[in-house]
């Protein structure tokens, strides 16, 4: 058979940013996928070395523009670790609530784009976009910004949560619970959806470990590892967090893991509000020119972002990071694409790409 080589991207409706794929096709079957990245490379790791510690959170947020707060928090947390700053207990709860809200927002956007990749005419996309907007409004209430929050400060948050934040959030969570059930009902009863998700893009648990994929992709393959469970930070230990995983490792498992994570996040937010100490302070240190002297030369820290595990490795200098190395979850999940897509059909390539939940800013850094 003759091999057809087609080029997809960097500008293509379903590459989620600037990703270029060179695909060798044998008929309709994929022989080989070559992934070209780096179109969005901004040299953030180098840039951070030239900035003061608290100048960088804004750069971190632009890495993953779908879940900016998560990256922001991961960076501030590694700085806190290096500088030896404790986070106030109330602020820990508040951070967990905001992070879980961010996770819901990110997964909702993923759900919409996933359905678009399967050829839906933007219907689920618009629905989930509307719901995501409600979450974004909550985050706006808490931080003052709609997209890029930059409200995590050393030792706490930029400011206290607004007084009616709890009531508002719980109301939205009730709505979100209903909506999630509605999505499940609508999507999982659609025969075409099930046909295109089940048994497509299978990643066995052995391969998943070998390729080092992370987050929902890893858990969908039956490997149970979630930083919130295995290496808990903040108050996740106190909350009754249960890890969500699936066995099969196909597209549908990845979808299920994310849907269950939305539900789990809703539950976590409710529980966190219940356990949050009523009194206390959550304001962190205001941004000053001089930050405290670092106590740890090398600090390493993992966070479970919506897309997977982010590992921040920082070598500290006074006032500035000497080196910051970011292990971005999308990067390593994308690396697994050429393995997963091999032998699948061309149409499934986009389903697989969608199910990996990539953000190109996070891949290229």
């Amino acid at each position, binding site marked *: 058979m003759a091999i057809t080589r087609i080029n997809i991207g960097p500008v293509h409706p379903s590459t989620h940013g600037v990703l270029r794929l060179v695909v060798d096709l044998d008929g309709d079957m994929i022989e080989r996928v070559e992934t070209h990245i780096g179109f969005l490379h901004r040299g953030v790791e180098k840039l951070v070395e*030239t900035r003061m510690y608290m100048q960088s959170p804004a750069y971190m947020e632009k890495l993953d523009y779908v879940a900016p707060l998560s990256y922001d928090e991961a960076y501030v947390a590694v700085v806190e670790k290096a500088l030896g700053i404790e986070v106030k207990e109330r602020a820990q709860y508040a951070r967990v609530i905001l992070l879980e809200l961010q996770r819901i927002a990110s997964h909702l956007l993923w759900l919409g784009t996933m359905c678009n990749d399967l050829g839906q005419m933007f219907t689920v996309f618009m629905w989930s976009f509307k719901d995501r907007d409600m979450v974004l409004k909550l985050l706006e209430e808490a931080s003052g910004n709609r997209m890029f929050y930059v409200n995590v400060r050393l030792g706490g948050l930029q400011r206290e949560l607004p007084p009616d934040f709890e009531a508002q959030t719980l109301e939205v969570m009730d709505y979100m619970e209903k909506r999630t059930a509605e999505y499940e009902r609508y999507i999982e009863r659609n025969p075409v959806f099930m046909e295109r998700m089940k048994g497509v893009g299978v990643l066995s648990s052995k391969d998943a470990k*070998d390729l080092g994929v992370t987050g929902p992709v890893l858990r969908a393959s039956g490997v149970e590892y979630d930083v919130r469970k295995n290496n808990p930070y903040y108050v996740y230990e106190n909350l009754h967090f249960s890890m969500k995983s699936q066995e099969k490792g196909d597209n549908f498992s990845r979808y299920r893991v994310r849907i269950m994570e939305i539900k789990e996040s809703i539950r976590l937010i409710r529980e966190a509000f219940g356990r949050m100490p009523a009194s206390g302070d959550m304001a962190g240190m205001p941004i000053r020119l001089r930050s405290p002297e670092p106590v740890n030369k090398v600090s390493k820290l993992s966070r479970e972002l919506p897309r997977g595990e982010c590992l921040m490795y920082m070598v500290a200098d006074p006032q500035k990071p000497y080196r910051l190395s970011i292990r971005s979850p999308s990067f390593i999940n994308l690396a697994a694409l050429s393995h997963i897509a091999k032998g699948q059909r061309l149409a499934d390539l986009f389903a697989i790409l969608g199910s990996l939940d990539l953000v190109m800013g996070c891949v290229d850094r």
Partner: protein
Amino acid sequence: MKIDREQLTSQVDRMKKNGYDYLVKITAVDYSDHVEAIYMLRNLDAGKDESLEVELKNDDLWVPSVMRSYRGADWYERELSEMFGIEIRGRTAERLLLEKWDGANPPLRKDFVWGVQYKAKEE
């Protein structure tokens, strides 16, 4: 854990047999007088992390590839060689991972100064 470059592959193999079957990240830090390559491995079942730090002299920058043990090392190794100029031996990288750029030195090394205009490399 600090180890020598020569022992790297055997140590990685040994650790993989002992349950460290997940590669978290390969990265490097340029300490001006030397470059340190860091291999972060994880035992998923026990939830334990281990780092292997390999010290490299500035004029002798190469490490053996660990692709044989972890396929996930592929992109990390390529990133390492492009960003730090560390040669990876024992594997072939058919092309650049990140797109081509016209600067001369590897960008994450400390002798690359942020904000300085570098001349394009002669082809």
